[in-house]
């Protein structure tokens, strides 16, 4: 990145984020290094591919969530949206509805559901004046309920192998350090598919600038000609449609549709985002931050399993890490 780009990015706090991103990346790599020495199984082609698969879905949720948090809002419904959509896509695939029951049709409808839910959130926040926390808390409950009503509480099994096979597929590979063959999982490619446009939108487009402006001072943004309503819609639609995309991936990965899946993922997404340097007060956040943050959480999970740690410790470590990372982030910002 040229000097100019660096100082440009710094204008919206992204320069600071690059620095933070680097130290977070350092933390992630240090964890990987330590686990490679401590266990024989961590640094293997199979486990790393597995780790990328495990972290992919939270990463996508976290990136979408970050868009809402930057505007000063919060989206508590992303887990519920993912669960609901996993049910919807399974339901569509197991019925005979013509085009809608084809894989492409079912995915398209699922994503459209995400867009609709996001628009509904923004409607509640913008038009009805509800606090984002309340609005998305309400849909978090309702969506699970609607899903259970539709399925009558049953789980829908997906028999379409072309659909479920995708989650196990890989694309592009290279020889691993131990001579075995490593292939990049499709699920991780999906993260990049989402992250690259998200990065461009957030850092290189005026809409991205507007989201930061709204998070900093929405009245000043409005009086500078920013269409605050439209931008708020944009943020919530991104968050919910990313969550719907995760719902599709989830259905592929576990081969079933069940609206109670992905419970608690909204908090993992928020945690990833916060570890990645996003401020819950708005106007501070990035795409790479939550991306790295989510893989840090996944590594704790993965590493704890390999180390045979009591799984309860994972939660304790995660909590401690959030406090430490956010504390140091605050220190760094003050020094500036």
């Amino acid at each position: 990145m040229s000097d100019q780009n660096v100082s440009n990015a710094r204008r919206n706090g992204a320069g600071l984020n690059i620095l933070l991103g680097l130290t977070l990346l350092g933390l992630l790599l240090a964890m990987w290094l330590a686990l490679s020495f401590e266990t024989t199984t961590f640094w293997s082609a199979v486990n790393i591919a597995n780790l990328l698969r495990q972290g992919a879905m939270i990463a996508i949720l976290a990136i979408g969530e970050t868009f809402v948090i930057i505007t000063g809002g919060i989206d508590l419904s992303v887990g519920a949206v993912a669960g609901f959509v996993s049910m919807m896509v399974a339901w569509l695939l197991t019925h005979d509805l013509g085009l809608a029951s084809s894989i492409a049709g079912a995915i398209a409808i699922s994503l459209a559901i995400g867009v609709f839910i996001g628009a509904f959130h923004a409607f509640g926040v913008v038009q009805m004046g509800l606090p984002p926390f309340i609005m998305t808390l309400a849909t978090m409950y309702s969506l699970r309920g609607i899903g259970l009503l539709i399925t009558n509480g049953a789980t829908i099994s997906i028999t379409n192998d072309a659909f479920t096979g995708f989650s196990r597929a890989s694309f592009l590979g290279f020889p691993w350090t131990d001579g075995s063959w490593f292939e990049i999982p499709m699920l991780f490619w999906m993260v990049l598919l989402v992250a690259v446009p998200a990065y461009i939108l957030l850092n290189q487009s005026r809409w991205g600038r507007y989201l930061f402006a709204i998070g900093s001072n929405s009245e000043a943004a409005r009086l500078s000609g920013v269409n605050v309503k439209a931008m708020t819609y944009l943020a919530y639609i991104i968050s919910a449609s990313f969550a719907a995309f995760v719902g599709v991936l989830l259905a592929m990965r576990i081969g079933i549709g069940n609206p109670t899946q992905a419970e608690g993922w909204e908090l993992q997404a928020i945690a990833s985002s916060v570890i990645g340097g996003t401020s819950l007060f708005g106007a501070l956040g990035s795409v790479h931050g939550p991306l790295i943050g989510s893989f840090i959480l996944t590594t704790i999970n993965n590493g704890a399993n390999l180390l045979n740690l009591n799984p309860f410790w994972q939660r304790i470590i995660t909590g401690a890490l959030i406090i430490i990372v956010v504390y140091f982030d605050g220190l760094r910002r003050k020094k500036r």
Partner: protein
Amino acid sequence: MSMPLPASPNSAASGAPLLVLRKLDKRFGATHALKAVDLTFEEGEIHAIVGENGAGKSTLIKLLTGVYPRSSGEVFWRGERVPLVNPHEAIGLGINAVHQEVVLCRHLSVASNIFLGDEMTRAGLLNHKAMLDEAQRLLDELGFDLPAGAVLSSLTIGQQQLVATARAERRGAKFLIFDEPTAYLTRQETAALFKLIRRLKANGVTIVYISHRLEEVFELCDRVSILRDGALVGTRRVEETNEADLIALMINRTIDQIYLKDKVPLGATILETEAIGGKGFHDVSIRVREGEIVGLYGLIGAGRSEFVLSLFGRFPAASGKIFWKGAEVAIRSERAAMALGVALAPESRRDQGLCLNLGVGFNINLPIYRRLGLGPLINLAKEASCADKQIRDVQIKTASRAALVSSLSGGNQQKVVIGKWLNHGAKLFIFDEPTVGVDVGTKAEIYRLLGSLLRQGAGIIMISSYLPEVYELADTLHVFRRGGIVASHGFKDASHETILTEAIGV
């Protein structure tokens, strides 16, 4: 450096001056904010501190109130050395400050704010009735026409300022610092405040009075100390000095004329309103021509801000007609106003004008991002050069375009508020209180900016509660009272007294 006052009865009793600062020094990293300042504050005096933005006034206040620790120097309270290292200690001594930007709880009532942290209780529970009555008694006694039960956010900024003062008075301050207290006050409110300050003085309270309005210093204060670039350049008794003298000391050069304004020939009509009305204003008809400054003078709450916000589409007018270059238009949104060529620098830079925790360049470019690239994508090089050009042109003192706006001084923040619209290429500029809380030097710079806009053929609507400013600058001056225009004047064709009378309506 500072001359002792003839001993007042109070200071005679205790012998030593109330507060003495010796070689008070403060550094922030490489910045030397306050340079070995020696100052003496006598008991029961009103001591003004003047200086340009960035001269060290705010730093001095923060040291006196214990917000920042000093780098070196000594502080003596009634002759005894005190550490003065935290706010708690300062309040314990009786040092209080009333800040320019009101720092109170907006969602609480006036009474609750006055008693915040010092609530009256009965059997361990809050005694709301007693607090309400006591607060109302205090407000009435001070001559503030305010209901104690009102929620703070329903008051104007000026009224909130009075509440802050009443709160400090109630806390029994011995040493009270006023930081630009009248910046947002109307004439009446200012008079009420001065009455209060004199009363406090009579009770032996020492007042430190910080203001950019030098005439207030002469009206109110006993002595005045001048800061420049962090150093004390002198202390004078007010009867031994004058405004020109103070200005020369403050900026180290003389300005013959702050209100420098070259006459620009008036051109075609840009905007005309015909009896427009909305929430807070009614039947307002004005005309703005190329090269013209139209001044809107009135008390705070007279409907001026609401009127201009309707011209900018924030709260669209409900009745009447608006003509833009002769054609009737409806201005339904901020974007519609901007598309026509209207720019608005709003009244409150903190609430309406700036994204404080974002960069200077970001704020400057915010209105013009639409033009800084292709489609939604931004041309980053152009973004940077636009910001840098504006920072240079408006002379914003900032470390870089990436520095956060919150790190700038008030005057420089105001330049960002104004500067962000200069790139926009607007035809009609609306400035709502453009020089509030801004020092003399910056004021002159802002007036020069207005002049250059006029020469480019723009028209300006300027709202000000500071009569000398609109009086000297406006080609046409409309006086607002209770949401309507009560009188209109040409350039200086009425006296200050006349205009004031019309605004107050006595």
